[in-house]
């Protein structure tokens, strides 16, 4: 047994209102630079829909992820090492910018500069790639809220698998939102496809990162990732991906997307897993077995043997504690309501989803029946095969039973809690019908409905108790080094990097988790104006006042 820790996320899709706040805040934080216009580390898709980039789930076309060869061994779907190198000069499976969208801005200056004329001047869209006028024909959320779905949704690769049963008639349709970030897989095919070895998985927390100094821009990771969550920065010529906001995670803060989620639908926590069993689980022959196989890779953090092995593997005691309190472990293994996205890609993804019950509830309610009655809901889950099969295509490689079981648990929770909220006697037969006790059901309700910040995000800080040495100012690297030297000599972004100031994140955490204003006392007379929230005047900003004033 080789115990490793993995930072993981679960999203409760029933709560997603599709507001895109996560995408926007993520973009503001990470990809608001030139060359990253089309890069969305976090995006929210309306399903059924094409996704981003368009039809990325069609692996017969894009060849992402892994497959089993004839001998049952794992093999990159895009081709082995030799084929990978032979296609290095022109990647045959790289989505063109058109599959994402051509980023644009507007020619705003004409609005103020235009000479007097009969018609109001308009700001025309200009491509950020060619600089020319362009016609906007697609973008990251072109089919948001099923907009234009009568034209496009039939190309949804997941719908195609159950297509003969679906008539895309508006009144019969269903939809939900699917927020996506990088899956930080246990068996990442992007890393396996990278010729330079620049993509690595961190031993401590399993976050998958691209070493920007080692990346040589071969673009193999883009086609290797079946989720298409690695993007090519077309200005710097380097691959970029979701970082799980590692500078925030290291100081115990949730990712930006989770922090700003309006519906509070994201959970972050640790999972302990047995690294020796990953490959075996990923090689499970039957696609339908992959969900169960992945669950078996996870270790029970309460098992004394696992705790002992974890300590032997150098996992700190507070990390094991955090793994025991992990909401992720509870949702995946205790309540078994979270499911992986596309286990059939065999990458062992680590961002899981609680499938939405809302498509079912909407239908029941529309018929005028009681949508919180157990009998009605259970019957509807059994009867409404199309939404359920669609969810199964997303989360269990098409196997309906696990999705059925999760939906019934969620339905049971709804019915059971209604009795309690209405002041009636709780009906123990409802949890029993889905194999749970009353207490378990109530605990699950608490976690899903009213869990507070520190229950949703159980993030042990990284073992950098050396916090002070993280501060570049106190060790080296004076301000004059920032932006010093001759930049951009060999094209955009070349030259020495501008450091991520770790101290900024440490202070951000102090500010967000304490009741005081910015400027912790122990910092003496140093003020970081970047973190000043505008409230009050932090000590050290002005010289100390004399004794008589």
């Amino acid at each position: 047994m080789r115990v490793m820790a993995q930072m993981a996320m679960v999203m409760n899709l029933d709560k997603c209102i599709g507001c895109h706040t996560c995408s926007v805040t993520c973009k503001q934080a990470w990809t608001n630079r030139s060359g990253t216009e089309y890069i969305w580390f976090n995006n929210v898709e309306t399903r059924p829909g094409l996704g981003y980039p368009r039809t990325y789930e069609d692996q017969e076309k894009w060849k992402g992820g892994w497959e089993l060869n004839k001998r049952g061994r794992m093999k990159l779907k895009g081709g082995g090492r030799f084929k990978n190198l032979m296609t290095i000069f022109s990647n045959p499976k790289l989505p063109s910018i058109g599959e994402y969208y051509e980023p644009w801005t507007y020619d705003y200056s004409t609005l103020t500069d235009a000479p007097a004329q009969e018609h109001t001047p308009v700001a025309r869209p200009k491509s950020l790639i060619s600089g020319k006028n362009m016609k906007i024909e697609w973008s990251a959320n072109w089919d948001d809220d099923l907009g234009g779905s009568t034209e496009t949704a039939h190309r949804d690769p997941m719908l195609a698998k159950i297509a003969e049963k679906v008539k895309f008639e508006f009144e019969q349709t269903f939809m939900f939102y699917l927020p996506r970030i990088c899956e930080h897989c246990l068996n990442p095919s992007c890393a396996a496809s990278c010729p330079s070895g620049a993509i690595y998985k961190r031993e401590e927390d399993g976050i998958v990162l691209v070493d920007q100094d080692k990346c040589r821009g071969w673009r193999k990771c883009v086609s290797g990732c079946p989720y298409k969550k690695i993007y090519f920065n077309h200005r710097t010529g380097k691959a970029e991906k979701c970082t799980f906001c590692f500078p925030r995670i290291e100081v115990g803060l949730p990712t930006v997307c989770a922090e700003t989620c309006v519906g509070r639908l994201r959970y972050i926590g640790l999972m302990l897993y047995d690294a020796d069993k990953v490959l075996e689980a990923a090689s499970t022959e039957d696609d339908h077995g992959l969900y169960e196989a992945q669950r078996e890779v996870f270790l029970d953090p309460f098992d004394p043997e696992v705790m002992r092995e974890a300590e032997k593997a150098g996992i700190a005691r507070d990390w094991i504690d955090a793994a025991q309190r992990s909401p992720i472990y509870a949702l995946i293994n205790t309540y078994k309501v979270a499911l992986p996205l596309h286990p059939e890609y065999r990458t062992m993804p680590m961002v899981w989803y609680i499938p939405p019950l809302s498509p079912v509830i909407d239908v029941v309610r529309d018929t005028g029946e009681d949508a919180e009655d157990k009998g009605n809901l259970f019957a509807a889950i059994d009867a409404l095969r199309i939404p359920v099969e669609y969810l199964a295509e997303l989360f269990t490689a098409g196997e309906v039973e696990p999705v059925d079981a999760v939906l019934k648990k969620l339905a049971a929770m709804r019915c059971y809690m209604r009795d309690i909220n209405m002041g009636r006697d709780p009906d123990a037969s409802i949890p029993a019908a889905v194999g749970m006790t009353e207490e378990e059901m109530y605990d699950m309700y608490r976690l899903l409905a009213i869990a507070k910040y520190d229950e949703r995000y159980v993030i042990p800080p990284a073992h950098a108790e050396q916090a002070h040495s993280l501060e570049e100012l106190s060790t080296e690297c004076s301000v004059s080094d920032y932006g010093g030297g001759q930049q951009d000599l060999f094209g955009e972004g070349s030259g020495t990097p501008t450091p991520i100031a770790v101290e900024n994140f440490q202070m951000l955490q102090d500010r967000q988790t304490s009741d005081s204003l910015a400027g912790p006392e122990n910092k003496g007379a140093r003020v970081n104006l970047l973190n000043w929230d505008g409230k009050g005047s932090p000590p050290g900003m002005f010289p100390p006042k004399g004794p008589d004033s």
Partner: protein
Amino acid sequence: MNLLLFVVFPYVCITVFVVGHLWRYRYDKFGWTTRSSQLYENRLLRIGSPLFHFGMLGVIGGHIFGLLIPQSWTDAVGISEQMYHVAAVGGGLLAGVMTVVGMVILIYRRRTVGPVFSATTVMDKVMYAFLAAAIVLGMWNTIAGSILTLGGEYNYREGVSVWYRSFLAFQPDADLMGEAPLGFQLHALVAFALFALWPFTRLVHVFSAPLGYLTRPYIVYRSRDDTRLGSHRPRRGWDRVG
């Protein structure tokens, strides 16, 4: 004059080549990339780029064979002059034609496709000029010198190659090159100028040819480097406390 052109200039260029790469690698790891433009345009690239690059690999292999292996060695293993000539010209022609066709497609693409052209730096353009000149001169030497034998027979393996090996051994014999036909002289000079430019262009990606990929494990694990928690390594003499 020969001394300046075929001893001093090449050594200066090679020095710039070596020192330049060391400097670039230390100063600009982030800028060390292929700067691929495939995202902008794929139709022409799909044909042009493999043609050019595979052709170029053949050309480089041919140069290694022709310049570094003495004629006496091939004679010793029983390869006659005639056999060598046919193989060298045949292989060289094939690789050369692939390279030239690929290069024409790529330059056409770079000039005509708007986004690609606007992503082209000044260094790129200078580099393209020298690279194209070196390739065209090389093709000219193969066709005019070895096939049509304009200006008489010239066995470069008794001239240019010997000079090149003497150059690498730091005992340069400039006269050998001075006697070579003009085409060979120009090709060598342009190539050395290209070597001098090399570290300052996107050509550095040649030295990142990812051969290690064939042997490394698929998944790379890395520990958070505790000696490097910021983006700079702590200076010597600064120890962490705790």
